[in-house]
């Protein structure tokens, strides 16, 4: 990471668009395609101001035609350009997944490394504002499951900018997933911890480095994205009750920083995985498996616990959605319950 001098507070949306903007200034091969990214500035403000700065040749509004422009991104990247292609909501991956997982993710491999596809897919994830089952998913585990895609899931503005610049400079496809409820939008309530100090200069954050965002000795919460902010609030509550929680923000799923997870779990001996994606066959199971594989090296005090969406589509109605998606209180409850459990 380069040293930074000027520091001010940005929302995560501002940090993302600043990161893109600085890379576009540095490298004229970088351009952006997607729906409503021009005049509108991106439905979740990830490209605000870019049209005015770079014009319609580099900030290209596309038709609603995801297979078309995802495939276009692949073709342009193979020719040496560096497209950023916005999938407005990750939920829409269904209409263009063939381009993403059969081509974007595999062409480098199938060409024996001869084809490079430096594409960044930016996409909005997450629920919490009653947008129902087709507009509220996280799905990062689905992308992380596919070999060949790097998956970035930031929890705050500082990380988002550094990871975005890193993503654009990476010669591989990167799926950059921003949770709508931490972007700091003026029309959606959000977790304010995500708005933080961001250096004005360009900087990078290497992939595969999780961050301990809160140190503690009693229990580790392994988490990512908006759930980091919820976990921090839960940890504050729990601190008042004398429970000292450590929080690991994964930041990237591919590559995954296993060492930081294992180090923290080794230290506290208790682990809760807090995830906004579906419970089964996902991030929480993966982390639990990584820990299980190291049980000859680390000592757990209690069984692993997971908190995630209980294998139901995200429901619309407020009480149903609040129940389905883990909340600050349910995280705190899960921690309390886990503190009562012992392996003996």
């Amino acid at each position, binding site marked *: 990471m380069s040293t930074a001098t000027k520091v001010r507070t940005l929302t995560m949306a501002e940090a993302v668009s600043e990161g893109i903007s600085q890379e576009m200034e540095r490298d004229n091969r970088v351009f952006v395609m997607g*729906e*409503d990214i*021009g*005049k*509108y500035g991106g*439905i979740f403000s990830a490209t605000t101001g870019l049209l005015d700065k770079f014009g319609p040749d580099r900030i290209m*509004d*596309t*038709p*609603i*035609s*995801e*297979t*078309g422009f995802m495939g276009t991104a692949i073709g342009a990247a193979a020719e040496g350009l560096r497209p950023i292609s916005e999938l407005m909501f990750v*939920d*829409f991956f*269904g*209409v263009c997944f063939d381009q993403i997982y059969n081509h974007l993710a595999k062409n480098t491999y199938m060409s024996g490394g001869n084809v490079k596809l430096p594409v960044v897919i930016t996409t909005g994830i997450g629920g*919490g*504002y*009653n*947008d*129902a*089952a*087709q*507009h509220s998913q996280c799905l990062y585990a689905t992308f992380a499951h596919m070999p060949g895609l790097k998956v970035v899931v930031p929890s705050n503005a500082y990380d988002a900018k550094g990871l975005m610049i890193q993503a654009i400079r990476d010669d591989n496809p990167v799926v950059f997933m921003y949770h709508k409820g931490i972007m700091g939008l*003026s*029309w*959606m*309530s*959000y977790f304010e911890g995500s708005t933080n100090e961001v250096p004005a200069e360009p900087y990078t954050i290497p992939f595969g480095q999780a961050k301990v965002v809160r140190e503690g000795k009693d229990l580790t919460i392994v988490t990512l994205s908006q759930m980091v902010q919820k976990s921090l609030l839960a940890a504050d509550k729990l601190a008042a009750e004398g429970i000292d929680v450590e929080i690991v923000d994964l930041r990237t799923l591919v590559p995954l920083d296993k060492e930081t997870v294992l180090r923290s779990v080794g230290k506290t001996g208790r682990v809760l995985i807090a995830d906004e994606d579906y419970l089964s066959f996902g991030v929480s199971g993966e982390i639990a498996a990584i820990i299980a594989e190291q049980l000859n090296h680390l000592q757990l005090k209690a069984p692993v616990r997971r908190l995630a969406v*209980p*294998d*139901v*589509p995200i*429901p*619309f*109605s*407020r*009480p*149903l*959605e*609040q*129940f*389905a998606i883990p909340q600050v209180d349910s995280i705190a409850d899960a921690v309390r319950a886990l503190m009562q459990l012992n392996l003996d």
Partner: protein
Amino acid sequence: MDPTSEQLLWMYEKMVEIREYEETMAKVYLEGKLPPKIQKGLAFDIGAGPVPGEMHLAAGQEPVAVGVCAHLRREDTVVGAHRPHHFAIAKDVDLLAMTSEMFGKENGLGKGKGGHMHLFDPAVKFSCSGIVGAGAPQACGAALAAKKLGKDWVAVSFFGEGAANQGSFHEALNLASLWKLPVIFVCEDNKYGISVEKSASTAIASNADRAAGYGMPGVLVDKNDAVAVFAAAGEAVARARRGEGPTLIEVKTDRYLGHFQGDPETYRPKNEAQHLRENDPINVLGAQLRERGELDDAKDAALRSTVSVRVQAAYEHARNSPYPAPEDALLHVFAD
């Protein structure tokens, strides 16, 4: 095909109903979403209030819904998109249960699980989706079923001009024509796909011209007029019922409100919506009815008050209904 007086009156009443429904929703939707009741610093909170989430309203687009649905029966299928209320109302979806659904209530069409973009009323064969372009192939499926079952039912797929650039639209047109399916594809050209104008998203001026590429009739209805839509749809539905296959219709219509409620609409010329309202299709049809002697002030007032009672009762019903129990989130992942 000329509408009867009864059909004209039905279309008029439904348009009045849709308009009141949408305008009421525009107000109710804002409840609880504005400062000072929301998180400090926000201008609007999409997840707050009695009707949270996204809200796409169809005020101005009524002629498309009524002009087509005037030809439909209960057994005919309608597949709508993310802006579904006008179609739902014109297809006689249960207004109480539909409104309850948008409030997230237990007695909603989907027991609160779907919300406004995901309304399912199998009793009148209505469904819709929040995924742009998803509906056209599904309408083909309903039409294929009708054919296999030996019925003269038809299926209608409604979607926006933006959706006509999705692969699914083109695949559906090809299938429907190849298999001579009784489908009517109805494209609502309201000029915008969110902020992007049709001229910036679509390679040709009229989607009706795309029909030629799939060997089916393409009809452009170039005014936002219920009677004009009625005429085009009448032909298309009759053709489909006769087993002669699909038709693509594009209607030039007007979106009076934002793409969704809360849309800053900075991409749109100021007063554009106001100008559109000057030629309001409800007034146009009202004037025609008056000319034919089918409507006068007294009759209009009576009709509007009946409609209003019906619409407002749906909102009251929804407001006063209970929420589902939180743990009901776990139900209905699979059919019992």
